């Protein structure tokens, strides 16, 4: 072909390649800025008062910052006490909420040491540039980058010479004493949590509408699964366990693929969102009560909610002693309690066979339409099918003990641990609690979805039968047929 053709094509190609190289190096798009919004309920209450909406949003921004720059406001009292809730080590001193003990912090650092062993080894070897190529949490990558910038800027030079020992100390500290800032945790939240739990923690992210059960709305301050005796706000440990282990068989997975530091960090941020939501509601109702919001309202709600969340004296359900063995007698006793309307009364919702189909699982509204009972968030709630043996928050005896003892927050599941009968005696004295626990656990025995078939397959492997032929799923778990047989 003619020369111009080729010249033009090569020029165009070179231009393309140049574009590719230049844009490829530094191009790093960001997520657009977001803003916290009022909850739908509060918005409805304040529909006629847009200026109050703005006031509340402004106050909340002062207290809790923005999604890009979240923070807890430091009051003047706190400042004079040297107490800063934005930094996780705050409880290390004498005062504070008691969220992080020294031991917990040490455990956190030990976890970091194990996780970043490769990077630490590189620091020891003096190969600082290679550290960035090891697997570091995203937030730590930023911290490390900043450290290296400091190094390049000569921050570790003494008398014009690079002080390697000082730098090594600092590098080690950066890696081991890593704990994300609230801002970094908010970024983590945006990446991992936001699409379900929503920007303001309302459980209303874009994915949420496809999920059942719906993601938690933090702003009510009610969390279903805690280890606490009364309906107190959850401890850090309760939230952390949910983040780390997930809520089984729901869309909330285990986030164990991240380190303890990051998960604790995101727990901090979830607590911030929850507190922010609660203050928002308090301010809304303060306005509805008094037609105005005073600065005192704001600071009072802020401190109140903070105290409530960081209260170190919450009652944790424990059992002092050995768990009694699940003897047939105890299980039979459990069955009795399960069926006794004056005692457990479990059957009324969970059904006589534990299938989650008791009569009280439905209610009839004024139009005579039968529908499922609702939880505090106004969603349908389905009593657990105990026969499946799958429990959202653990199937350990103590987990089920706690569920029966304290109920499930925000749901019609009552707590029986402190209930008394007509005579004022404990409803479930002595081993009765455990009888119920063991009975509930026995319902799921050999029944949680694999039953006998897995074993016939395994046997089939030894006996030389094609596994495909034996793949037919168990009939057992079909709700109507079973369970009764398990009911001893």
């Amino acid at each position, binding site marked *: 072909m003619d*020369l111009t*053709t080729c010249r033009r094509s090569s020029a165009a190609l070179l231009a393309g390649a140049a574009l590719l190289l230049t844009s490829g190096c530094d191009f790093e798009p960001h997520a657009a800025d977001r803003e916290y919004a009022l909850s739908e309920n509060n918005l409805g209450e304040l529909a006629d008062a847009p200026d109050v909406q703005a006031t509340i949003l402004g106050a909340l921004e002062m207290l809790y910052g923005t999604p890009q720059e979240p923070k807890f406001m430091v009051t003047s009292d706190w400042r004079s006490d040297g107490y800063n809730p934005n930094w996780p080590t705050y409880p290390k001193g004498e005062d504070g909420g008691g969220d992080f003990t020294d031991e917990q912090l040490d455990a956190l650092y030990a976890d970091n040491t194990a996780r970043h062993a490769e990077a630490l080894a590189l620091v020891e070897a003096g190969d600082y540039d290679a550290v960035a190529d090891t697997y570091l949490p995203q937030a730590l990558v930023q911290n490390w980058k900043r450290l290296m910038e400091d190094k390049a800027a000569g921050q570790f030079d003494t008398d014009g010479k690079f002080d390697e020992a000082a730098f090594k100390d600092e590098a080690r500290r950066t890696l081991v004493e890593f704990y994300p800032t609230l801002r970094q945790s908010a970024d983590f939240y945006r990446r991992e949590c936001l699409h379900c739990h929503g920007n303001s923690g309302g459980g209303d992210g874009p994915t949420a509408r496809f999920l059942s059960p719906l993601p938690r709305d933090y702003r009510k301050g009610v969390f279903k699964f805690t*280890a606490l005796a009364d309906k107190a706000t959850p401890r850090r440990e309760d939230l952390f366990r949910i983040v780390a282990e997930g809520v089984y068989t729901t869309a909330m997975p*285990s986030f164990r693929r991240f380190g303890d530091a990051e998960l604790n960090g995101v727990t901090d941020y979830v607590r911030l969102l929850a507190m922010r939501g609660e203050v928002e509601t308090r301010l809304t109702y303060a306005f509805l009560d008094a037609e105005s919001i005073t600065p005192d309202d704001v600071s009072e709600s802020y401190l109140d909610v903070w105290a409530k969340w960081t209260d170190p004296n919450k009652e944790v359900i424990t059992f*002092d002693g050995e768990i009694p063995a699940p003897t047939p007698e105890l299980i039979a006793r459990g069955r009795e309690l399960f069926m006794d309307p004056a005692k457990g009364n479990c059957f009324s919702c969970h059904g006589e066979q534990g299938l989650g189909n008791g009569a009280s699982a439905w209610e009839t509204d004024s139009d005579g339409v039968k529908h499922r009972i609702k939880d505090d968030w106004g969603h349908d709630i389905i009593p657990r099918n105990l026969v499946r043996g799958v429990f959202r928050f653990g199937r350990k005896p103590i987990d089920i003990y706690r569920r029966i003892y304290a109920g499930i927050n925000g749901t019609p599941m009552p707590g029986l641990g402190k209930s008394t009968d007509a005579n004022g005696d404990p409803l479930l004295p002595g081993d009765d609690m455990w009888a119920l626990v063991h009975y509930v656990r026995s319902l*799921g*025995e050999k029944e949680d979805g*694999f039953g006998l078939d*897995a074993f016939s397959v395994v046997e089939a492997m030894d006996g030389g039968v094609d*596994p495909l032929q034996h793949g037919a799923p168990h009939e057992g778990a079909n709700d109507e047929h079973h369970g009764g047989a398990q009911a001893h």
Partner: protein
Amino acid sequence: MLTRLFTALLLLAVPVLGVYTFVTAADHGWWMQPEVSTFGQDVDFLFYLILGMVTFFFVLTEMLLFWFVWRYSKKDSSKAVYTHGSHKLEMLWTAVPAGLLVLIAFFQMSTWAEMRFKGSFPEGEPFAHVWASQFDWRFQYPGADGEFGTMDDLESPYEFVVPVNQPVKFVLHSRDVIHSFSVPAFRLKQDAMPGLAIPVWFQAEEIGEYDLVCMELCGWGHYKMAGKVRVVSEEDYRAYMAGLQSEFMNTGMEG
């Protein structure tokens, strides 16, 4: 003339850069994860065997293509070679690849049999039942009575702990949709099929933590369905099980 040069260079770049990429890939970590299981070596051997053969034919054919396009696009007013083919050549380039391919197929069989055939499964009870669900892994161990499906079964999320240098058999289930139990470092992948209980085995040869990845699309959260397989020494394995056991029986007294 320039078109000719350009085209020839492009065609030459394919084998040159193609091979260069593969040669230097390992430096950037763009290469297979290190293998740590008994059949990992065999799989990698077969991979490299095929890689060798494929590279040979890749370079051969791409270089021929480059050379022919360069050589025979020269301005030439004479006619092309008039031929409709050569029986001998056809026989040659049918028989040689056929032989190689049969050989390759033959080489795979024993490894495949070792991985999947029932005869090569370890004897005895499985170590665990593994449950896949949207978007979690759960590992169920037999507990104190050594039997599955009883009240004292132990369960752990996320992390599958197995002893080193022992054949580990487990049974794979799915609670909802199709998932895939995949540990790249073990060269192991098995779909978890709802309605089927599928026995799987492997033997890890090095202590360490290995990523467990769901490799079959299982819904919107597929990308976050992660797990870990932790390979530990025999004692650590016992200690871990004892720890699970004591945690199972804990009464909340120690936090």
